[in-house]
């Protein structure tokens, strides 16, 4: 029966149908659900790895040991996994190894727009690009076949509009793929130069064979239209083009690296006008131009941002559907905000009060860079804040160290913050580091991490202690503070910043969206005491608003965290007696 599936669900389905036994990942939008769906298949051993590099290494180990393995990440995750990825290119695989990478054109939830197709080229690895949910499933199965036939890891690249789109497909059964023998071929997985130089030659030969494969594979589709125009495209751009130019000829590249050069030249030669429509970088376009094929590409479709039907229509036909005119302009924006009762609000409020320079990081807490808190100065890539705070102190000296702080989330600390902390201790830095411990990877939708006490499958696991870790690497000053206790937060921050030694402050509260989080009865503003000083608005809680006269607390949104009550100079924010009595 045809089933409506999210692209990421279809990738998971494809992995399962292909007989995958081991799945690893680190969460990241828009890739996260792949692994959450995979976890529902009991035949697959799935894990949230501590970061993408480790995830890929675990998957490589599984492949060498004979199990088909899939490793999933978002595009910037591939940067973290780049060392194992490029290093496993020459050795190749035993059982099939597929790396699923989800790009985010338009930066819906990412720090950049990098194009993963380049990384396939860099690693001499084939790249498959599904354009809808059915292809997500199908291409996963094909990717494993290619991986084993050509002895190569394979990249399956999706984008936001493929990963987070639904489409219909007919689910199949699980293939019977037996565990292969452990691969003990002499030196195959040894990258010492003497071995690796030989594999270098093998990898180049493999690329030649893949080029021949590209010429004949049905992953690439050639459709003749009724016009003398053709479009070279792939991934989601194909879907937009089909709507805009239903009569054009199409070459849809399901295998986007390596390209079928002879076939492409031939196909383009049959048409008067050739458009290349690809999201992000002009990779197909440059390749075709290098082959001497005159094509029109980025001159008509932008390199920045995601494409859409309207952008493709404008670029290729210079037309647009008749618009309905709207009287609405200059509407207030609705950016994402920290939740009422969020763990992060207290620590950042105190940092703002102390006027600190904040080297931040990536997670929900990155929202504190925006008004009204506006306190985070930097967030570059996961884990960067700790090293950057240390670098800033090197540049500006000890005084600056007393006025600046590094802040990082729990998941991000294990991912790539802990090495920065070791660097500070080893190189005799005096940085103060705050670890925001809300016990979960919140931003990507609540994935377990090493301090959650549970695995991806919900099994209990050791909850790693930040305090024990910090002490074990020689940090003498390690403080644990309730993230809602503003007084203590301030005292502790002042003390640790004043110290000419490194220190770690761990702020604790469960993420309010977590099922285990404690929610209290909503608070109320006492209108007799409220002087409308607006101080409570400075914490950016969506439950608090000002109606032009008095401050109000939304009784549906408020979770009674009392942070606002703690900063109100007039004690105007009060607990309410619970209906029916009992403690408030």
């Amino acid at each position, binding site marked *: 029966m045809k089933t409506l599936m999210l692209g990421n669900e279809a990738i998971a389905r494809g992995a399962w149908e292909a007989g995958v036994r081991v799945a690893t990942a680190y969460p990241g939008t828009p890739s996260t659900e792949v692994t959450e769906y995979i976890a529902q298949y009991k035949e697959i051993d799935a894990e949230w790895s501590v970061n993408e590099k480790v995830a890929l290494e675990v998957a490589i180990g599984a492949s060498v040991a004979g199990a088909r393995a899939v490793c999933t990440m978002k595009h910037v995750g591939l940067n973290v996994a780049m060392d194992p990825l490029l290093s496993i290119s020459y050795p190749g695989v035993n059982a099939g190894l597929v790396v699923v990478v989800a790009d985010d054109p338009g930066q819906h939830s990412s720090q950049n727009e990098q194009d993963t197709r380049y990384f396939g080229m860099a690693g001499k690895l084939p790249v498959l690009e599904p354009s809808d949910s059915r292809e997500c499933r199908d291409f996963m199965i094909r990717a494993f076949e290619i991986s084993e036939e050509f002895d190569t890891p394979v990249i399956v690249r999706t984008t936001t509009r493929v990963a987070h*789109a639904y489409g219909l497909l007919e689910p199949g059964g699980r293939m019977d793929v037996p565990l292969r023998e452990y691969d003990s071929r002499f030196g195959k997985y040894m990258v010492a130069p003497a071995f690796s130089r030989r594999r270098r030659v093998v990898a180049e030969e493999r690329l030649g064979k893949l080029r021949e494969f590209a010429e004949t594979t049905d992953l690439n589709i050639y459709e003749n239209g009724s016009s003398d125009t053709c479009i070279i495209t792939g991934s*989601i751009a194909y879907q937009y083009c089909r709507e805009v130019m239903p009569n054009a000829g199409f070459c849809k590249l399901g295998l986007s690296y390596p390209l079928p050069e002879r076939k492409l030249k031939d196909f383009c030669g049959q048409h008067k006008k050739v458009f290349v429509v690809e999201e992000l970088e002009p990779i197909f376009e440059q390749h075709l131009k290098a082959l001497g094929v005159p094509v029109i590409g980025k001159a008509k479709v932008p390199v920045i941002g995601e494409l859409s039907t309207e952008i493709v229509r404008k670029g290729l036909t210079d037309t647009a559907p008749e618009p309905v005119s709207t009287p609405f302009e200059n509407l207030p924006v609705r950016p994402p905000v920290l939740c009422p009762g969020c763990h992060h609000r207290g620590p950042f409020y105190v940092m703002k009060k102390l006027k600190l320079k904040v080297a931040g990081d990536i997670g929900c807490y990155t929202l504190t860079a925006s008004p009204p808190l506006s306190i985070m100065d930097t967030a570059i890539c996961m884990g960067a804040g700790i090293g950057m705070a240390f670098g800033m102190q090197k540049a500006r000296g000890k005084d600056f160290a007393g006025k600046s702080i590094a802040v990082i989330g729990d998941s991000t600390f294990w991912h790539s913050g802990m090495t920065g902390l070791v660097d500070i201790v080893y190189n005799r830095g005096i940085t103060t580091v705050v670890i925001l411990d809300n016990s979960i990877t919140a931003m990507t939708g609540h994935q377990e991490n090493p301090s959650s006490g549970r695995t991806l499958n919900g099994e209990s696991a050791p909850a790693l202690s930040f305090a024990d870790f910090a002490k074990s690497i020689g940090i003498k000053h390690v403080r644990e503070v309730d993230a809602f206790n503003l007084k203590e937060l301030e005292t502790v921050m002042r003390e640790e910043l004043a110290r000419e030694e490194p220190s770690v402050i761990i702020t604790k509260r469960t993420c309010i969206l977590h099922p285990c989080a404690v929610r209290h009865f909503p608070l109320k503003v006492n209108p007799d005491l409220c002087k409308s000083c607006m101080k409570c608005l400075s914490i950016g809680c969506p439950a608090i608003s000002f109606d032009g006269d008095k401050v109000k607390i939304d009784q549906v949104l408020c979770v009674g965290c009392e942070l606002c009550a703690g900063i109100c100079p007039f004690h105007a924010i009060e607990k309410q007696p619970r209906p029916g009595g009992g403690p408030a």
Partner: protein
Amino acid sequence: MKDTTNILIAAVGGQGALLASKILGAFATARGDDVKMSEIHGMAQRGGSVVTHVRFGEKVFSPTIEQGSADVLLAFEMLEAARHAAMLKPGGTVIVNTQTIAPLPVLTNEMPYPADIIGNLKKMNLRVWHTDALDLARRAGHVKTVNTVLIGMYARMTGDPAESWLKVLAENLPPKLYKVNQAAFTAGYNLSPPWTEQE
């Protein structure tokens, strides 16, 4: 594609837009249509604007709706209706919940919440159907069923029998949530559009 129906859902993170699109998609699938839908997960859901696209018909290519070609806008909140009204084609329909949820610039008193959104929508070349779906949801048993009230209104507009929708609801909701959603759906379904039904 001429025969494709395009429904845009505009909501605030946490209002249940994803479930609503799932129900619409499941209904079209059950009827034998080709279906594509698109949504955005992640950071945008922390109380930000959320938009999902639902498209069905004989053959659907893109999962997103082209600007100016939506047939129906299901707006879960008034400001979001205003923000996305231009996605509709001329003569398109907007079904809007008159609930207001203040966005950050309004909360912090930097900007007023826009006045008379319904009046302005009515000035556009659109059919406008507005109701206090939050109140209907509350009376149906839970404030979180605003999404189902609006689906009920959409179902009423298309004229499909309520039973076929309720069957899809039952298949896509945990059993313990069915009853309240059935009530919410029925509350929406029992309203009638402000235009004559034959129009």
